Structure formats: structure tokens, C-alpha cells
């Protein structure tokens, strides 16, 4: 059952279109990430769901109810803010029980629910402290506690981990995943960090320029990016994207760019000859024998692998991965080959759609074999 539905939602600030024709179907109990660069409309989308912004068009539903005009407090949602937004003049305990107080939960019941939540988040010893006396991680827990205390239908999280240091962030990520599994509640999570989105979500909504680019499980977003933007946004190091042209020859397609020529059969029927782009992830490049000649420019050693940047021709840079024990020198000549089964092809333009056949389609199976 769909729990949260956005139908043709738009939000305009003056002449600026922050969110444009957004359609999302979020299932009950799903963990959804809204992922994109800053200014892509993800936070506006979340704030519209929270009721802090009102859409200028379309319809937002929570459960069976259209909530376009419902004030935030009556939507049965809870939200964790990037800044935590803890009430500075209230103690930890008062912060956590504030939502209950506002919903006129009797005092005794309130205390019990607050104690239970505090226990779960290991905040019990801190209940009498003020927010400013807590560390960043503890403040984060209090913000979570204030959201968890009343068991809402949907949890909204606006970059909740972005103010934590790297180690704590990793730890809280695991905790959030566990929390989601335990509670089984719908969660909508806004982030610009693809690692968070990839590791935590059931599905990721990738946004850019106010538009939804793709809404799919992390694996699919990585393996079958809907367009060039998604392809280049997801993955570290990013996908290599090469501008060139496609032509049809002898029943197969050939992509050509200066110094590169890749043949493939698994493009969809809408493919037309002409300008296009090819994307290849670093792991799709193999070093050794190959038709592409280049010069090693830069090597990054991460410990378990080497990231190698190779200059091909005069201005094309391709990034590949190799085993950590292979020693590279800058300036060394290398030969590369591209695994055409791992190549993605896109229409011309910054948001050009992907032309490959879906991985599951029968034509693709043949091509892969």
C-alpha cells in the first residue's frame, strides 16, 4: 500500500521552480532517500511533505488523506532537522516530551513514553541537561528521540548526519538502519551523500534542477542509471563520460570518440545515429593489452586499491581501478580496453537518457552472452 504519494507536485518561489512535476509513490515501511546536489529541490520536497512549505501545484497524500492544506502538527509525521533544532531552553527530557505535551498526552503517560524513548537511545543519564551541554552525537540522539517518542506514521530526516564527524556518521548510519528495521515505519531521508543513500535506502529518488531523475533501488541506480546526470552523480570515483557519436554498421552500433571506438548490440530501439555520450565506470576499464593508448597522470592509493587517472589523446581523462600491489608511475604509457558490456550510452546533452536495453530484457541477455 502506498503510504506517501506525490502527484504532479510543483513548488515555485517567485519565478524559480524549486520542484517541478514531481511524482513519487512511497510504500508503507519503505526507507526512501531524496538524493541530489544542493539546490536540487530535495529539502523543499521534504518540507512540503512536512507541511512547512505548501505546494503551488499537484497533490500530496499521506495514507489516504490529501494533506496539501493540513498543518504540520496534524499530519502524523515527525522530523529530524539538519540543525537538530533542539529547544535550547528546555532540558533533554522536556525536548523529548514536547510533542506529547502538545498532543495533550496525560502527564504520567508522557513520562513513561519519554523514559522508554530515552532508554532506547541511551539518553537516560542526560535527561536533565540542556542541549548545549551535549556533544554533537548526543544532540543528534535527542533530535531522534523527539521524533521517535510518539510513533508517527512517517519519519522525515533532513540530512541528520551531516554535522557529525566521519566515524560517528558511520555508526549512526548503522543505528538508523537498525531503527528502521525495528520500527518498520516509512522513512524519507534527505541527503547529498550518495554513500548514505546507497547504504540505507530501499529506493533512492535522485533529483536535479527540481526534477526527479530516477527513482529506483540503489543497485539499479548504480547499474542502470536513467540518464547521464544520474550516471555521473552516483559512484566514487565517478563514471567516466566521453562525448562522441554513434553510428549503425552491420547490425551493431559503434560509438566513436577521438582515440576510442566501442561496439555494442544492446541499445534500445529508440537509438538514433549522431552525437551521443558513453559512460564507463572505473571498474569497466582494464589495464594491460588494449586498443586505447594513454599516459598515467595521477595515482591515488586508497590502501585496498589504486585509482589511476589516464590521459588519452590531448584532453580526455579516464579513471580506472587497479589492484593495490600494482605500482604506477606518473608519465608511464599504458594500454586500456573498455568492457563494452559495462558501457552505458546516453543521448546527447547533460541529462541525455540512457539508451542501453534494460539488464533484465531478453535482448540484453543475448548481447551479454
Amino acid at each position: 500500500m502506498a503510504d506517501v504519494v506525490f502527484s504532479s507536485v510543483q513548488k515555485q518561489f517567485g519565478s524559480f521552480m524549486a520542484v517541478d512535476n514531481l511524482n513519487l509513490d512511497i510504500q508503507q515501511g519503505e526507507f526512501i532517500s531524496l538524493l541530489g546536489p544542493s539546490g536540487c529541490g530535495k529539502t523543499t520536497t521534504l518540507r512540503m511533505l512536512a507541511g512547512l512549505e505548501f505546494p503551488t501545484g499537484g497533490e500530496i497524500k499521506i495514507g489516504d488523506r490529501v494533506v496539501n492544506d493540513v498543518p504540520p502538527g496534524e499530519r502524523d509525521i515527525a522530523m529530524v532537522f539538519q540543525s537538530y533544532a533542539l529547544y535550547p531552553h528546555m532540558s533533554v527530557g522536556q525536548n523529548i516530551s514536547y510533542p506529547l505535551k502538545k498532543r495533550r498526552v496525560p502527564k504520567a503517560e508522557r513520562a513513561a513514553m519519554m523514559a522508554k524513548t530515552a532508554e532506547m537511545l541511551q539518553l537516560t543519564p542526560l535527561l536533565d541537561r540542556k542541549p548545549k551541554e551535549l556533544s554533537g552525537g548526543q544532540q543528534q540522539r535527542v533530535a531522534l528521540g523527539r521524533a521517535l517518542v510518539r510513533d508517527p506514521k512517517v519519519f522525515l530526516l533532513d540530512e541528520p548526519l551531516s554535522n557529525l564527524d566521519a566515524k560517528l556518521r558511520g555508526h549512526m548510519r548503522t543505528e538508523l538502519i537498525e531503527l528502521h528495521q525495528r520500527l518498520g515505519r516509512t522513512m524519507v531521508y534527505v541527503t547529498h551523500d550518495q554513500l548514505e543513500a546507497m547504504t540505507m535506502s530501499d529506493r533512492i529518488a535522485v533529483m536535479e534542477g527540481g526534477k526527479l531523475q530516477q527513482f529506483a533501488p540503489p543497485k539499479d541506480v548504480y547499474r542502470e542509471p536513467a540518464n547521464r546526470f544520474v550516471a555521473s552523480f552516483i559512484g566514487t570515483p565517478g563514471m567516466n563520460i566521453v562525448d562522441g557519436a554513434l553510428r549503425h554498421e552491420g547490425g551493431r552500433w559503434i560509438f566513436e570518440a577521438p582515440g576510442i571506438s566501442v561496439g555494442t548490440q544492446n541499445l534500445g530501439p529508440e537509438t538514433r545515429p549522431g552525437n551521443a555520450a558513453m559512460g564507463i565506470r572505473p571498474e569497466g576499464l582494464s589495464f594491460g593489452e588494449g586498443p586505447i593508448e594513454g599516459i598515467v597522470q595521477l595515482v591515488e592509493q586508497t590502501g585496498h586499491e589504486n585509482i589511476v587517472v589516464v590521459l588519452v589523446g590531448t584532453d580526455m581523462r579516464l579513471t580506472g581501478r587497479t589492484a593495490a600491489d600494482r605500482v604506477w608511475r606518473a608519465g608511464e604509457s599504458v594500454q586500456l580496453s573498455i568492457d563494452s558490456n559495462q558501457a552505458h550510452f546516453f543521448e546527447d546533452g547533460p541529462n541525455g537518457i540512457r539508451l542501453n536495453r534494460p539488464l533484465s530484457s531478453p535482448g540484453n541477455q543475448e548481447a551479454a552472452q
Partner: protein
Amino acid sequence: MLRKIAFNLFAWSIVLAVAFPLFWMLVTSVKPQFELFRRPPTMLPETFTLEHYWGLLTETKFLSYFWNSIILSTTTTVVVVAIATIGSYSLVRFRYRGRETLAFLVLFTYLLPSVVLILPLYLMLVNLGLSNTITSLVIAYTTFALPYALWLLRSFMAGIPEDLESAALVDGASRLGAFWDVILPQLLPGIISTALFTFILSWNEYLYALVLVNSDEARPLTTGVMNMLISSFNIEWSLLMAASVMMSVPLIIAFAFLQSYLTRGFGAGGVKG
């Protein structure tokens, strides 16, 4: 070392220069009449007396003026702070056409010299039948205290993260509830600063009081004391000094109590960033 001593001497000489009139006011108020004009003057009173204070309280209308001033300043402060709080909330939180222009216009009225406004204001208040009342002074003081108060509170209000209010709304508060539960406590240092400022301004105001009120029932301390103790023939120096001391007392008390509030709460944590 020598520099440090020179600097200290310099600093202390400034402090003395500023403090001396206050000291002289205090000393004069407790000297008996015959000691006042002695030459050379006595630094500390040879005979200590409180007769001027007693005289002021029992034989003059000082207490009634004092009471008028209290009512006047308190009412003005409450009215100004209430309007400025709500006004600054509107200026900071709501987006509407002409918001910035409005804020600028408000400041502009503050830039006009009060002498320019006093005649039109006087005529308006007479037409409203409010001449010679404390109410007329409350209205007049509000017109010049409000613009500044609004700007002062506006900057305090702008410093309160909007997320706090959003969080309260999501947590189930109404807009008014969020304002009451979250905004007001955060604004408290600003409110106290503004209140103190307004109170001092209305407590010390002279020009409007002189023009707008001409009866002892409504006269505040500033004009009252001048009226009663300075005639064209004589200035009652000792009574005047005693009155000045007593006029300063409420302000000193207010400062002493609220000073800690003024610094407390600035930058109180809770929002990281």
C-alpha cells in the same frame, strides 16, 4: 611598565571625570543648606543630613510625580515591547510585498527630530481629547521608542533559527503555540534589552512631557521636579540633588537585576552550525 601606569592613570582620570558629577550630586543631597555654598567647598559633608529627602517626600508633590513616572514608563515599555515583538516577528518570518520598505520607513521616522513631530502630535492629542493625560505621553513616547525597539528586536529575532519554529510546528504546536513555547524564551534577552532601553528613554524624557502635559495630575518626574524646584528667583539645589538621586534609583535597580539577563542566553546552544 611606565606605559601601563600612564595608561591606568589616564583611564582612572576619565572614570573620575565621569563619576564626579554623580558623586557631587550624592554629596550635595546630604549636606545641610548652610554647608552648600561655603568656600572653599567641603568634599565630604561635615554634617550629614537626610532633611532634604524628608522634605521632598513630605512637603512636595515628588511622590505623585514619581508615581506618574512609574505608570508612564511601565505602560510605555509594555506597549512598545508587545508591539515590537509581534512586529519584528512579522518582519522576520513572513514574506510579503514591501516588507523591507516597511522596515526602512519605520527607521526613517526614528531619524526625524522629535521637535518636528511635537506640534502635529500635540494637535492630534488635543483633538482626541487626551491633552494633559498620562495616556497622551504613553502615545507620544511609543511613537519614538517603537521604531528603535522594532529594529533592535528584529535583529534578535533574525538570530533565532527558523528550524526551531518549524520543529515546534511539526511537533504539534500551532503558530501561536510555537511563538509562545519556543520563540519568546529565545527572544528573552532581546526583550529585556528593549524593555530596559524603552524604560530609560521614557523615564528621562523631558521635551514631550513639557509640551504635552501641563497639570500636576499627569506630570512625570522630569518636568515635575524642574517645575517645583526651579523658579525664576531661586534654585533649590539640595532638594534638586535629592530628587535627582531618587530619580536614578529605579534605573539603578533595574540595571542591577537585569544586567545578568542581558548577557545570559546570548548564543544559547541547541542548534549546531
